């Protein structure tokens, strides 16, 4: 049998169901590998002792009808986990131990999975390289000097490095798809309203979505099936008929119409990304789908729109961190002084920058010029997609404008860091589902991803297209275990 940690989720589930492996075997294997992988800095908090206890308990009376029977899993440290520290990568939540569970993680435990620990991320999910985390940057298993992407950088690194068979991240502007692309794994950002936001530390509420990150499309579909539920505790959760994504998964995409948006051919995009995209177009054609050139004319306005909308919502969401009810508190001469020092010492530079941008664009005299303007442009961006979807079933683009960059390369230039999300941000602004699948390597041998964008609530369709393409691409991630002690 293949090394336990090299097996996919689907294989592990099968082996546990056939009693070839116990939950204890599997949990032990991932704990051991995680313990040898401290150099990646993928974990903020581990829960290994309890995880092993839970696995043993599961094995005593295994319920093999569950979808994730005794499967160990680490999750992004943005999900509140009852009695397990949840930091959002921030000093201000350094000591926060939630007394409740997020709906998405609750769904996962209800299907039999076991928490391994909490994975590193950019502070409050604000970043594209996992370098804004208070708990240090994360290394990309592909190469020592590379960022894993962000904000779900610890999650991506942990899946690519086989520290967890699967994980969940969150995606506000690309935070699942970009790190998935940088580490050679699959990442799905579901339709807005598909997965409950209850118990997820909020960043930008009209954009945030949780989603699965996995080694392959089938695993991704299975986890999506578990986490996507209607939840009255989230007022924007949508009650629609959800598929059994993994069961209904098919490689038959004959006759599907796939849009190729010309505006995604941006200035300065490396030739290898263009080549990858052309290869992707050939793959979908080989699968029997038809490609159609389309236009999404407002694409270049998506990032500026995002950098008004997201900080505005963040400045409002993060107002709750005042050093009174929970989290870090600094000493102050009076209440206001305490607030100001708490927030100045508790938030990192990028978070402060975004709170200030958000505060400014919402402040008296500037609201119409910035926030209202951005909401109008957001409408135009959504209209572009609505128009395109009259002609096509899905859209194919590169996931990112480049492969993973070096640690420290972009930390001093916020705008160049933001440009990383140029292909992913429009999808969040329009509330659509998008999946990134590994599709090739650049000349340096670093992985590159392709993104498939779907209609709202059409996760099944983009999973199917990804599933069909995956077979044609036959991607092999180049993991050398350089970090293992």
């Amino acid at each position, binding site marked *: 049998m293949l090394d336990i940690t090299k097996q996919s989720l689907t294989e592990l589930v099968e082996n546990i169901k056939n009693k070839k492996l116990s939950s204890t075997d599997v949990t032990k294997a991932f704990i051991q590998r995680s313990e040898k992988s401290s150099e990646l800095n993928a974990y903020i908090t581990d829960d290994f002792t309890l995880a092993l206890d839970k696995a043993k308990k599961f094995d005593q009376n295994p319920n093999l009808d569950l979808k994730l029977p005794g499967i160990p899993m680490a999750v992004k440290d943005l999900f509140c986990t009852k009695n397990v520290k949840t930091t959002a990568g921030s000093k201000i939540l350094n*000591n*926060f*131990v939630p*007394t*409740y569970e997020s709906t998405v993680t609750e769904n996962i435990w209800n299907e039999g999975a076991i928490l391994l620990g909490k994975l590193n991320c950019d502070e409050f999910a604000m970043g594209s390289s996992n370098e804004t985390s208070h708990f240090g940057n994360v290394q990309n298993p592909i190469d020592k000097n590379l960022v894993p992407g962000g904000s779900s950088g610890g999650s991506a690194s942990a899946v690519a490095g086989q520290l967890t068979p699967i994980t969940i991240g969150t995606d506000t502007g690309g935070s699942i798809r970009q790190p998935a692309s940088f580490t050679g794994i699959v990442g799905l950002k579901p339709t807005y*309203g598909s997965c409950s936001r209850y118990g997820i530390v909020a960043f930008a509420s*009209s954009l945030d979505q949780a989603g699965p990150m996995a080694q392959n499309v089938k695993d991704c579909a299975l986890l999506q099936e578990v986490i996507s539920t209607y939840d009255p505790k989230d*007022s*924007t959760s*949508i009650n629609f008929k959800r598929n059994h994504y993994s069961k209904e998964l098919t490689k038959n995409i004959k006759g599907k119409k796939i849009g190729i948006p010309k505006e995604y051919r941006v200035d300065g995009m490396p030739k290898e990304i263009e080549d990858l995209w052309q290869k992707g177009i050939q793959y979908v054609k080989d699968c029997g789908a038809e490609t159609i050139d389309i236009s999404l004319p407002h694409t*270049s*306005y998506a*990032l*500026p*729109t995002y*950098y*008004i909308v997201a900080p505005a919502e963040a400045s409002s969401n993060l*107002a709750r961190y*005042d*050093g*009174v*009810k*929970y*989290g870090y*508190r600094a000493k*102050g*001469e*009076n*209440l*206001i*002084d305490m*607030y*100001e*020092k708490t*927030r*100045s010492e508790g938030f990192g530079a990028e978070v*402060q*920058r975004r*709170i*200030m*941008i958000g*505060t*400014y664009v919402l*402040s008296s005299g500037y609201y119409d010029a*910035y926030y*209202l*303007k*951005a*909401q*109008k*442009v*957001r*409408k*135009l961006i*959504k209209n572009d997609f609505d128009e395109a979807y009259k002609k096509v079933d899905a859209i194919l683009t590169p996931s990112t404008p480049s492969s993973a960059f070096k640690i420290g390369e972009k930390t001093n230039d*916020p*705008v160049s860091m*933001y440009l990383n999300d140029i292909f992913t941000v429009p999808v969040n602004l*329009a*509330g659509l589902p998008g999946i990134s699948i590994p599709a090739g390597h650049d000349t340096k041998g670093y992985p590159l991803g392709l993104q498939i964008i779907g209609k709202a609530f059409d996760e099944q369709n983009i999973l199917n297209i990804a599933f069909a393409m995956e077979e044609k691409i036959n991607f092999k991630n180049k993991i050398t275990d350089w970090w293992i002690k």
Partner: protein
Amino acid sequence: MSIDLKTIKHISKLSRISVDEKRAGKLADDLNSIFEFIEKLNELKTDDVKPLTSIAETTLKFRSDEIKSKNIREQIIKNSPEDNEDYFVVPKVIE
């Protein structure tokens, strides 16, 4: 448009984040480069566009106001930096 130190001071006060002189200059530079990037939106005429305020385009649902969690006082206070019996403690607000 340019964000000067006076504006930084104003935003810092509104957002309750203290910014010392040393940091203010760098912050102004960063914000200016970001706003320069954002100004691109002014190329678009949007007078007749209705703003997108909710992506789901549904009205918010009502639900009955039922109490579902009881006796969670202890849980609520558990993570507070400083508390006294059932209260959060803050620096003195009345002189």
